[in-house]
């Protein structure tokens, strides 16, 4: 090609691209014009805010929820992880389907902490006024961006820092891990139980401890010396690392039951492989596993015993409804802090959800075994099967109707470990039947009740002792930095 043809081709290309870009721009501009009412709302808000500030601050800011709420979800992993991010996206899709009249959502996946800032900048500039950031390490950046965009509502999952336009929410699994632990204690033959941890944040430490407490409760009665081996892999989503950590636990530490906190299905698939091999007589011990966050039974029908399932949609439906109704505004999220347990339905104990929506709590393959192992329920002193023990504890956790309202705000968490109360009669001289009834605020019993002893993770020589009968509160659980004594922390892989 000589210069002339080349220039000619180039000019033609330029014209084509230019015209196309022009039309694209026109269409886009039209789109913006449609969202103009939203824009007006924002300006009104800014003006109102300035007014209030000059008036001396305080409450009373007016915020009108937009006609169409645009909500964006920022995920730390790919939505295809079939774990944490996948379940958040399920929640998003449920909310969008239910509230289709006024809700528009989008998501951004595989966002690392350092890309979060520009992702939020982009979302805000496109008019998203509700942003959910769904990873613990997004906490500081979310607060920072909250300051930068005071008229946007942010909700950060699993953190503890809030401000007037940044609320927090979490659905915690420690009760479910405890139930899983009871089963693990019954099933293990090598007496070595494993746990693959993404990081050892307080959340994961709490889950490891709950799992270990459950395992020991049953294991001890069966004369087993339970050890829980923990390997930390240093990532939330890392299928390869998770798999090799599981392999180390199974091979090196003789682990035959495993739980984990990692966002992929790699461990389930590995456990299925090993258990299948064990049943064919290839290996001397199996690897039973508890699926994490999503109904992972389908990835290991022979190896998955039970697991933890989350229902983020419960929280997303609630938050978005309250935004639409004008209850949540960018000025009053400072104490919004969801902390959902089994009682609210935000989490579920099980490994599979059938097509009709019912939950498979325990893989049918293991039910007979669990029914045949007898233990004493330490709460009632009765001799029952492990299966019945697990199910009765599950019922106990589910049945705490008064706990739910306390789980919604940062100011009421401190009441969550009140066991039961009695209300005083109005007039002491007159008999009042209700004043004699025990009113249960929290669950009847909690796994984190003393006596417990442990050691601080970063300083194993420092011991922690929880005296007999003391029940840990929300803040103790939330800041947990110690392992119970029978947890062996093998450090980062």
């Amino acid at each position, binding site marked *: 090609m000589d210069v002339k043809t080349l220039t000619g081709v180039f000019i033609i290309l330029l014209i084509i691209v230019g015209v196309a870009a022009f039309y694209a721009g026109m269409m886009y501009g039209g789109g913006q014009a449609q969202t103009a009412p939203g824009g007006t709302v924002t300006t009104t808000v800014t003006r109102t805010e300035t007014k209030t500030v000059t008036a001396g601050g305080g409450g009373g800011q007016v915020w009108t929820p937009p006609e169409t709420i645009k909500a964006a979800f920022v995920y730390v992993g790919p939505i295809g992880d079939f774990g944490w991010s996948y379940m958040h996206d399920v929640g998003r899709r449920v909310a969008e389907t239910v509230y289709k009249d006024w809700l528009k959502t989008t998501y951004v996946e595989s966002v690392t902490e350092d890309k979060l800032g*520009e*992702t939020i900048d982009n979302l805000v500039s496109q008019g998203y006024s509700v942003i959910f950031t769904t990873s613990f390490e997004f906490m500081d950046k979310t607060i920072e961006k909250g300051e930068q965009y005071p008229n946007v509502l942010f909700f950060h999952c699993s953190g503890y820092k809030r401000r007037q336009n940044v609320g927090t929410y979490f659905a915690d699994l420690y009760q479910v891990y405890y139930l899983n632990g009871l089963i693990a204690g019954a099933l293990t033959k090598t007496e070595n139980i494993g746990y693959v941890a993404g990081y050892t*944040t307080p959340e994961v430490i709490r889950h490891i401890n709950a799992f270990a407490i459950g395992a020991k409760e049953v294991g001890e009665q069966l004369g087993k010396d339970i050890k829980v081996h923990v390997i930390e892999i240093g990532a939330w989503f890392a299928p390869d690392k998770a798999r090799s950590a599981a392999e180390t636990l199974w091979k090196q530490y003789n682990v035959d039951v495993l739980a984990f906190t990692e966002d992929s299905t790699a461990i389930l698939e590995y456990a299925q492989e090993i258990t299948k091999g064990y049943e064919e007589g290839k290996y001397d011990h199996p690897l039973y596993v508890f699926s994490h966050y999503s109904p992972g039974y389908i990835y290991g029908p022979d190896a998955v015993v039970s697991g933890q399932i989350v229902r983020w949609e419960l929280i997303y439906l609630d938050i978005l409804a309250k935004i639409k109704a004008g209850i949540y505004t960018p000025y009053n999220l400072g104490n919004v802090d969801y902390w959902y347990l089994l009682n609210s339905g935000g989490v579920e104990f099980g490994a599979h959800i059938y097509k009709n929506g019912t939950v498979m709590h325990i893989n049918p393959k293991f039910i007979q075994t669990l029914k045949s192992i007898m233990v004493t329920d330490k709460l009632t002193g009765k001799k029952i099967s492990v299966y019945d023990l697990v199910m009765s504890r599950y019922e106990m956790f589910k049945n705490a109707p008064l706990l739910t309202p306390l789980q919604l705000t940062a100011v009421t968490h401190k009441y969550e470990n009140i066991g039961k109360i009695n209300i005083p009669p109005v007039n002491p001289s007159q008999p009042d039947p209700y004043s004699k009834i025990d009113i249960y605020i929290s669950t009847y019993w909690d796994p984190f009740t003393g006596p417990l002893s442990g050691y601080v993770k970063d300083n194993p020589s420092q011991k922690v002792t929880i005296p007999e009968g003391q029940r840990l509160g929300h803040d103790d659980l939330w800041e947990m930095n110690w392992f119970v004594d029978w947890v062996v922390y093998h450090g980062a892989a």
Partner: protein
Amino acid sequence: MVIVRRVKPLPYWIVPVLALVVGLLISMIILYVMSGGVITPYDILLSIYYGFTNVGLLAKTFALLVIVGIGLLVSFKGAIWNIGGEGQFYMGVMLAAWVALFSGFAFNGFIAKTMMILMALLAGGFWALLAALPRAYLNIDEVPVTLMMNYIAYYIVNYITIGEWREKQYGYYRTVTIPESTMFQVIDGTTITLELLILMITIFILVWLMFKYTSLGLRIKVLSSNPNLLRSSGISVQLTILMALLLSGMIIGMAGAAYLGSVSHNISYPVEEKTPGYGYTGILVAWLSMLELIAVPIAAYIIGALHTAGINIQIMGVGGAAVVNVFIGSILLTYAVLITISEYKIKIIVKKR
């Protein structure tokens, strides 16, 4: 088939412009096919339009790319191919982080920020010097050396991030966030910070002055075309090489400090995965500018806009995280091909028996 050098090269502006257009067309095709028709060229044009028109959004990327681009340009002008921008950048980030977190200067924002920039400047310069010395005195090619120094820098930063500097509270593989007083001041409605803007303008003016009025600028320019001329006029070629790379590293190091103060606010492991890649993208900026200082901001603007467009495609819910790289990669590839075509032409000669 033979390849012949063109007697008269194509007009020089045609290559970068054509590279952009063809590169974008290629990315459209790639994305269309890879996404199974989900990402249409229309989506991409929409995103690109959006990227180009949202000045506030691209400001931060733009400013950092201008600084890194200018830094690289200083050495490229002297035909010293500094591929080590990433390493110099991260050495700057590391030293700036040290100032912000551990030096004790954080009590005063102004002193701390000045120190961050100065230390980053020294760190970047030092890192470039390590490649410049063997280049100047042992005549070891700077391209592989600077490139490998990137990885050394990554691993040093990784080592210190997961070791000594790792945040203790939750055990995440990263440093703690730098104190509020050391964070650069965001300009309202944009993503850029005041300090970054000032830094960019200052560097631009200083480098412009250097090439326009100083003998060092002239020496660097002559270095690329005719080092023997330098030698015969009694000027040390070694010293010129050293200076070109040193300056280049210093400027890029400062971009590192600006990145820490304006954007990341901490260092997160593993650096080689978390890096914004400005050290490499900067090479594209410098090349697209055809090594003309004035054109660096234009090239940086285009790349910044494409970067925003990439994120935007992701937000539209149709693309993955790698869209930005598809854009940048296609353009760079097209550029490399076109620059060859502009200097050489391919003739097919059919031999007659």
